[in-house]
């Protein structure tokens, strides 16, 4: 296990911020950490990164305590904090070279270019950071976090404020890092689409307490939050019935309500239904999915 957090508690000036947070992250996995504003997501990442010592509970990163072995852990992790500042008077190249040197690496021109290319900043290596847009800063922050070829990457709202292409680019980088380089990624976000696309396992924090944690599919099934769709047909369905990953919930004439297994998309289901001979004229989302799971989990705690 790359990261194991068990029942951590943190208080600021006597006010509890985290009371019982749990999560576990394996190598090569993207873990989505969700929760309302102020729930304690960023504080949790700070504890995992060894920037804050928890008042209670246990944290292990690569088997080490992030507080006592902070220097070693910082050598194997990268982080993009929510509010990441930059030295505006530096160029992107100078900025990366500066942090590489702090990590004990001297990047040559080719290595620098490769790092900038990876995040889509290659055309602007000598542009002052002060002139960068928010999206370009996010990309540069990601490049900085990847400078030391980390085993663990902690990202706090990595795609917030990015345009659709920027989001997609960041998604592709994260997928490549996790699948092809075995990097474990802990990602805090409010964007459920990001989690749907990237994460197999999630944790939901509310008021400093983990209210749901585990495999996304298991959580959706356990909470009765499978994605629900309404089908409209132009005739009788074929005798073969529904695909294995679709489950009939209700039928009213030519209107069917079905639940889809996690990780199955509506597009794929539509194509499969048409291929099987279903006369589908319309498929419409009715609810369920991660949004329902998130709302249920955070609502319960508020009540």
């Amino acid at each position, binding site marked *: 296990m790359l990261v194991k957090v068990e029942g951590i508690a943190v208080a600021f000036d006597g006010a509890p911020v985290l009371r019982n947070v749990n999560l576990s992250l394996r190598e090569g996995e993207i873990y989505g950490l969700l929760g309302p504003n102020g729930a304690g997501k960023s504080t949790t990442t*700070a504890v995992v*990164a060894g*920037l*804050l010592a928890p008042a209670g509970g246990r944290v292990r990163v690569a088997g080490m305590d992030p507080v006592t072995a902070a*220097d070693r852990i*910082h*050598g194997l*992790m*990268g*982080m993009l*904090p929510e*509010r*990441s*500042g*930059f*030295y*505006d*008077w*530096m160029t992107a190249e100078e900025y990366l070279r*500066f*942090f590489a*040197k*702090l*990590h*004990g690496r*001297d990047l040559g021109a080719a290595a620098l270019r490769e790092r900038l290319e990876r995040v889509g900043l290659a055309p602007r290596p000598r542009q002052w950071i002060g002139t960068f847009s928010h999206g370009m800063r996010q990309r540069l*922050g990601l490049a*900085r976090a990847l400078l030391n070829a980390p085993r663990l990457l902690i990202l706090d709202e990595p795609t917030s404020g990015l345009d659709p292409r920027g989001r997609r680019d960041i998604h592709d980088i994260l997928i490549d890092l996790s699948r092809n380089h075995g990097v474990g990624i802990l990602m805090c976000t409010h964007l459920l689409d990001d989690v749907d696309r990237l994460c197999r396992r999630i944790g939901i924090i509310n008021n400093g307490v983990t209210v749901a944690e585990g495999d996304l599919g298991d959580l959706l099934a356990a909470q009765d939050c499978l994605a629900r769709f309404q089908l409209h047909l132009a005739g009788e369905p074929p005798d073969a019935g529904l695909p294995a990953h679709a489950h009939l919930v209700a039928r009213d004439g030519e209107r069917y309500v079905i639940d889809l297994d996690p990780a199955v998309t509506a597009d794929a289901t539509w194509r499969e239904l048409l291929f099987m001979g279903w006369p589908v004229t319309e498929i419409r989302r009715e609810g369920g999915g991660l949004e329902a799971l998130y709302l249920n989990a955070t609502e319960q705690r508020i009540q």
Partner: protein
Amino acid sequence: MNAALVLARKEGGELLLGARGLAWLLAASGALSVFGLLLVSNSELSLLDNAQVVYDMAATITALGALLAVIVGSDAIAGERERGTLVPLLLTPLSRGGILAGKLGGQALTWAVIYVLALPYLWAVGSTGQNLAASMVALAVLGTPVVLGFGFFAMALSARLGMARSSLLSALICLMVSASPLLLGPGLRQSAIGKAFDTVNPFSAAVNAYDAIIIDSQTIGAQAASLIVVFIWFGLTLCFARRSFRGIVR
């Protein structure tokens, strides 16, 4: 390259390439020009002799250096935190001691820039170059620990208070209290309180030593008491900064 040295170079770059650093240096040049002009006018009108204007200039340079050290030091940690640049620094393998060493390098560079910037002014107000060497030595030996001490003190406050504005205000108040002997009349300085204050105040120690070296032509070796005060100040503020930096969190 040593990571602390890398950080010190960044601090230097911020001073020489960043807009804020350049603005402060320009302001310092402007202030030195105004003081220089006033002192030269006094000298031309025979109101002050050569040694006196050089002494006044040296004291002014020390005060200006300490002011800049306080401004740069107050920003050291609190400013980085407010701009969101502290966490990336804390996530490098650089220890808290390494960060302190890098920031100290930045402070030393700031003072070095002011020192070099001040040399032509010292030469100009002295008109003949007389007393220039004595004032340069006095500034280097006594001014450096005083100025850097104020920088360390401001850095320590910056690490502890966490807000650049609060640490700047607190450090400025301490600097103004310390520099008050420059404004006190001789009568007040001869009182018991004035004497006690002069004895422990690093700023007074440095200025009194300037007086002895530049005006009375005494040697630097004869200023043992002043040297002890300014180096105790230097050591204490360095220890304060080290202790404060150990507790830095995000």
